[in-house]
């Protein structure tokens, strides 16, 4: 990987610009994913989604944002104040941190500065993302506990135990990809899948079972249908965010969609080749095309999330837990054993 001649100040300025661009892009994608969801679910249910605010309802996120800002921010008197305020901040922070490790493109050169389209890359990027997901459980558990209400408590306990159970399957499904690549760094994982689309991990690496497990586990981690019992409106009032209003509720809401985007990014990087695709044209086009390919993959995943939401019913809680521990866990272990066996045999006989 070329390093380029970066002085400290250039590196700092480039990093600050990248952070601003990535965060801005992520928050815009989150806002418009909400709109996309409402419109797609509306069409699945044979009605228009929001279509009044702006052409085709495109200014709806703006109206939603204004509503959240002007709504009364009510703090019930019997809550545990410090944890009540800390919980949504923790959830949103952990949801936003993962974007700092995602590569959305290759290396580009602007004004002679050669920099990767990624805020940072470490030797243990994938582990950091897993760790940040683990810390996100605290936001939900503390939100439910500090609200001092039985609906919140039940929702929080169910949500956190669901998240912890599916984290196991999530982590194990990634081990197959790691055996093939030999590195935790997301950049290396994408580089391993360069070439035409049959080089992707899902096809040439044979990780289609792992892809399926990852998708199931990710649906459960982000508390989306069919695994959204913790926040099911008809069963638990609103689950762990019953007692939250206005800006704090908006933070939970944004965190859920930011988690969806993170999962979509990770799935496309690990299994579908990241930003790889045919490059052609002048230099500036070669820099922008990987970003376009990556965005296309993210859009496909978000659409899949929304499509599943509009179509499937939700799991009961015991079915959900049995699915994780009795089906996904043995399947992911079998995937690890078979992948390791194949890699070892190939190394032996070649």
């Amino acid at each position, binding site marked *: 990987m070329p390093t380029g001649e970066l002085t400290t100040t250039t590196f700092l300025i480039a990093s600050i610009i990248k952070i601003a661009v990535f965060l801005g892009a992520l928050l815009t994608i989150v806002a418009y994913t909400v709109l996309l969801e409402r419109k797609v679910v509306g069409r699945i249910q044979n009605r228009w989604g929001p279509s009044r605010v702006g052409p085709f309802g495109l200014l709806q996120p703006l109206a939603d944002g204004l509503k959240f800002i002007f709504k009364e921010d009510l703090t019930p008197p019997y809550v545990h104040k410090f*944890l009540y305020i800390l919980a949504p901040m923790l959830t949103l922070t952990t949801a936003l941190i993962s974007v700092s490790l995602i590569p959305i493109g290759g290396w580009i050169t602007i004004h002679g500065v050669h920099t990767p389209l990624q805020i940072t890359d*470490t*030797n*243990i990027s994938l*582990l*950091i993302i*897993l*760790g940040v*997901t*683990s*810390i996100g*459980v*605290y936001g939900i*558990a*503390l939100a*439910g*506990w500090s609200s001092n209400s039985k609906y919140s*408590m039940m929702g*929080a*306990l169910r949500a*956190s*135990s669901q998240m*912890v159970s599916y*984290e196991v399957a999530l*982590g194990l499904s990634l081990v197959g990809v790691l055996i093939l690549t*030999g590195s*935790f760094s997301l950049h290396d994982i994408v580089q391993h899948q360069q070439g035409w689309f049959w080089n992707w991990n899902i096809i040439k690496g044979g990780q289609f079972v792992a892809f399926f497990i990852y998708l199931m586990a990710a649906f459960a981690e982000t508390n989306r249908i069919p695994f959204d019992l913790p926040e099911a409106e008809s069963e638990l009032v609103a689950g762990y965010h019953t007692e939250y209003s206005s800006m704090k509720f908006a933070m939970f809401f944004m965190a859920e969609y930011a988690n969806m985007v993170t999962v979509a990014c990770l799935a496309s990087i690990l299994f579908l080749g990241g930003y790889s695709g045919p490059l052609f044209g002048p230099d500036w086009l070669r820099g922008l095309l990987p970003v376009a390919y990556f965005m296309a993959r993210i859009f496909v995943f978000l659409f899949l999330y929304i499509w599943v939401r509009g179509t499937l019913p939700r799991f009961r809680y015991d079915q959900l837990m049995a699915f994780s521990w009795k089906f996904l866990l043995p399947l992911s272990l079998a995937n690890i054993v078979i992948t390791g066996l194949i890699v070892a045999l190939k190394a032996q006989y070649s």
Partner: protein
Amino acid sequence: MLHLVLFIIFGAICVAGAINLLAQKHPINSALSLVVVMGALAGVYLLLGAEFLAAIQVIVYAGAIMVLFVFVIMLLGAGEEEHTRGSKIALLFGIPGMLLLSVFTTWIALKSTPSAESVGIGSLPGTAQGIGRLLFGNFLLPFEITSVLILIAIMGAVVLARRES
């Protein structure tokens, strides 16, 4: 210089979290202080170059074991702790005793290791490959035994916490 500043920041957070664990009356506050201690310790491990261990510390200790503690505190509805006669005696003798013990241990540690020897930032890169080679090479037997240990712990926890029906 930067090494010293970073170490002081993470070390101060560790010690503050540890003292807060002792000072708080409600167990949930103690649990959250312990999570902060573990996070800061992961930072100290990164300073020592143990990157894989730092990630594992966050994933396993702060993200799984402490979640278990927080669950149990929420489930049992633990309230603030009460003080009995024994606890006042323990406070009276325990805290000075522990201060004495820690000063004594520190003095022994500083005397026996050549304290002029320094450790650079990230001087021993503890990569996943290096640790993996050791785990599956020299330490294969302990590795397999600990996996059996975890299996026994899972079965034990399920049996112990089951409701008599």
